[in-house]
């Protein structure tokens, strides 16, 4: 456990807390982007270079932007969180309980006494590619199919049915 890991973990966790608790949605989205960046940093810190960069590319470059866009497109629906709301309190309590259970499990299980390897296992990009395309080629294809389906599904869902006025506007172009 290095200093850099602690710093990154603190950054990630505080950004995550901020993302879930700030009153303005846009601030939440930006904090979420920071949390994702921190998570990518942790991956890099643990030696998983490719995954960390993929995390940055996908989460910061795509998911965070998508969320920001969604917030902008649903403007006017911004509901500020009332701190005393019942759901907020009960949600936090439940989450804390879950955390207590998880932490207890982690600290009492054999994992925390297990000897860990100091060297990072080899994970060259080429090896990842070969593994993906040989051992895991079926899951890869399934993921590709899923992403395509998601793309088409998202487009169909977000399709705005054109009103006659909008069509007229499109024709005057």
């Amino acid at each position, binding site marked *: 456990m290095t200093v850099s890991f602690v710093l990154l973990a603190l950054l990630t966790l505080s950004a995550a807390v901020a993302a879930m608790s700030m009153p303005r949605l846009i601030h939440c989205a930006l904090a979420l982007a920071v949390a994702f960046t921190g998570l990518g940093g942790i991956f890099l810190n643990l030696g998983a270079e490719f995954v960390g960069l993929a995390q940055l590319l996908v989460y910061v470059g795509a998911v965070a932007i998508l969320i920001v866009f969604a917030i902008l*497109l649903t*403007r*006017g629906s911004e509901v500020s969180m009332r701190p005393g709301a019942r759901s907020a309190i009960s949600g936090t309590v439940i989450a804390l309980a879950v955390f207590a259970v998880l932490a207890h499990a982690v600290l009492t299980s054999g994992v925390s006494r297990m000897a860990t390897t100091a060297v990072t296992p080899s994970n060259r990009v080429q090896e990842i590619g070969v593994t993906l395309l040989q051992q895991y080629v079926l899951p890869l294809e399934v993921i590709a199919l899923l992403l395509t389906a998601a793309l088409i599904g998202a487009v169909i869902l977000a399709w705005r049915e054109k*009103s006659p*006025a*909008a069509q*007229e*506007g*499109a024709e*005057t*172009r």
Partner: protein
Amino acid sequence: MSGKSMMEESAIGLDEQMGATYGAGRHTLKPDAEHESQILEVAIGPQHPSTHGVFRMDVQLDGERVVRLKPVFGYLHRNHEKIAENAAYLAAIPYTDRLDYLCSMTNNWGYVLAVEKLVGIAVPERTEYIRVIMAELTRFQNHSALVGFLLQDMGASGTPLMYAFREREKILDLFEAVSGARMMCNYLRFGGVRVDCTPEWLEETRQLVGRLPRFVDEFERLLRGNEILMARTQGVGVLPRELAVSAGVTGPMLRASGVNYDIRKVDRYGIYDRFKFRVPLGEHGDVYDRYMMRVLEMRESIAILEQALKEIPDGPVQDPKTKVRGLRPKVGEAYGRIESPKGELGFYLISDGTMNPYRYRVRPPCLINLTILEDMCLGLSVADVVVTLGSVDIVMGEVDR
């Protein structure tokens, strides 16, 4: 204020101001009711790089699509008409310079023509030629500047504008040489012009006019086949023929919509019936047609200039018996109009027999061409609105007066 009432208000306000009714072809674009909350109101201007002065468009956008556009002007209003009603007839000429400050020569001519009609002054032959030369030079430099500005509005980072200004500068140099001022020329007088042109000036003008076709060719080579230019302008900001006529649009804008109406041909004022020139007509009435009208008219201007410079006779430029100062026209009224580079520029004068006009009224082509802006822009994107506005060719000095 709900959007609908605001739009109606603006339309009524304009109607009253113009005294024009234009019901035909008017189409309104309502925002989809379900997206009302997403409408973004943006004030384009008065401080905006491409509103050609202090002009404001209150635009309501759905995304980038314009659903409502309200032109707001008056920032440059300076009481031109009232001042002229309180000044002697002669003293109003410098004020006309400031109307469309790119085209002071034609402004002068419009006013001078109205006064000449009112009083009944004859104009010497040589003066008529000089006026035609000045007017066509003015038209050329106005159109070339407009094309430059239009491309600038399209985001061409100044290159076409600088090309246009290079030629415009030379014409302004000529104006300076003959009148002492580059833009506020104050050159025409009732029944004549202020000073005669020297033979050297005429020779210089001949040389310049000889070079102008090459400039137009170069300009066209630079732009005409440009795919982005065509994609940005064709089918954009269409002005239907009927709407153009009923709204009183004049000038190259009207002709781009396919209406054959050029006051030089209709009225044959001055000596325009002596020259051979053609009137280009557009078909689609979109921005591209308006742009090409200007380019083609530049060529026709060159043709007129060549003829006028060849035929210009010697002689006096002013009948010495004509009274210029202390003019007291008989009671009556007159309307003088010319084809200014932007359209029909008219001056309406009522004389009550005193030193200054009882009523002095300008019919500004820019303002009237601007009134149909919303009709052209609905459903377009912001980028197209800017280009459409650019193609109208406005000068705020004339819009606001």
